[in-house]
């Protein structure tokens, strides 16, 4: 699969999918005008990736600083998909949040509750 590399805009996050290295990154702010339109090809590419036969461990990195309700809905779908993948292979999820951003920390904790088949790591970072 061709790698996916979408630069961040004012309202959409940076998306970097390195399929050959099984590394997936979501970073920045997410409040697109049409979340479904923006995320549909992204979710589809992950769904397609999930259907290959590889057993290599995969890592999903989330370094989001803000997301709106419709992006949250997409994220929940995404976690569902990732968790399903974890039934057959090792999946690591990294949820990065700024040390002073308790909203992002709480959402990380919240999302981790739904994860049964993947390793969910909450990781704080500072400005340094």
């Amino acid at each position, binding site marked *: 699969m061709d790698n996916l590399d979408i630069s961040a805009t004012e309202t959409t996050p940076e998306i970097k999918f390195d399929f050959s290295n099984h590394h997936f990154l979501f970073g920045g702010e997410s409040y697109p005008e049409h979340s*479904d339109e923006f*995320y*549909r090809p992204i*979710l*589809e590419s992950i*769904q*397609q990736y999930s259907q290959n036969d590889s057993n290599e461990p995969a890592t999903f990195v989330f370094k989001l600083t803000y*997301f*709106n*309700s419709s992006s*949250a*809905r*997409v994220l*929940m*779908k995404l976690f569902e*998909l990732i968790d399903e993948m974890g039934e057959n292979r090792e999946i690591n999820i990294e949820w990065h949040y700024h040390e002073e951003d308790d*909203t992002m920390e*709480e*959402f990380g904790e*919240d999302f981790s509750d*739904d994860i049964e088949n993947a390793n969910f790591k909450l990781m704080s970072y500072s400005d340094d």
Partner: protein
Amino acid sequence: MTDLLSHEESIIEQGKQRVDSEEEIEARHYAELLKAYIKLNKEQNRLIRLSDKSQKKLSVANAKLANFSTKLSKYFSPEVYNSLFTGELDVKVQTQRKLLTIFFSDLEGFTELTERLEPEVLTELLTHYLTEMSKIALRWGGTIDKYIGDAIMIFFGDPASKGEKADAVNCVRMAMEMVDQLAEVRAIWKDKGLALPLNARMGIHTGICTVGNFGSENRLDYTVIGNGVNLASRLESNAKPNSILISEDTYLHVRSEINCSKNNTIKVKGVSYPVQTYKVEGLMMDQADQFGLTEHQIPGLSLILDQSKIENRALVRKKIKEVLDLLE
């Protein structure tokens, strides 16, 4: 490929079809619906929490912004501040030539005051004086350009203009009210023990100036420059204490409403001809009537009645009666 984002819709659709078919709903169907319902309920709660949190953050950010803009507004003339916030005024080096009426005022003997007064008292005095004068300027629609110590520079005609004549008249009316108000400020400070009287000189000129954002890309100053500014400043320095000296250009705009007396001519650097000056005497009588103003100056009596400022008419009548009783 299943559309992940319409998964719920497909479950609802399947449920509807089962209900419509009137077939017996099996436990596994019910379990499937229940599972979807539990998931939706969880999602809904999560989204509500996200929405509440975002709203709270927004309220905090709004409050911070409001607080910041209130602080920021004190550094700008409200006219400029409003133009900036409505987007009418671009934040870039940009100027234009415009006919403006420029006002300058200065306190007589302020240097001596700064030497005599403690800094705290001087700060209090200056704040009181500038606050009172600024209130009047804003009421008349002036753009406060800057304070330079005790000096005030105000212009009329930009960013908002009521027309060249109205701008000039409003500027002179503002200056007249400032002279009146200064008498009250002077009395307050005399009671506080200030030995030197507070007297202001004021100068006004109407002319073409360059107005706008001057400076660099990093630091802008919304101001006005040109010979007209120098001329207004010269008129101010030539004015007698507590009087307003205007140029002929201003006089021609205000003469139908403001009573002025012809004064001397002055020479101004950068202006090749002698500038005819006029001293502001007061409102024309019909204007005074319109604004409810009555003024009488005779030996032993100084009377100014400004009906537009009366807050308690009964109290005014009582005071006048007390004065009349004194004359009985």
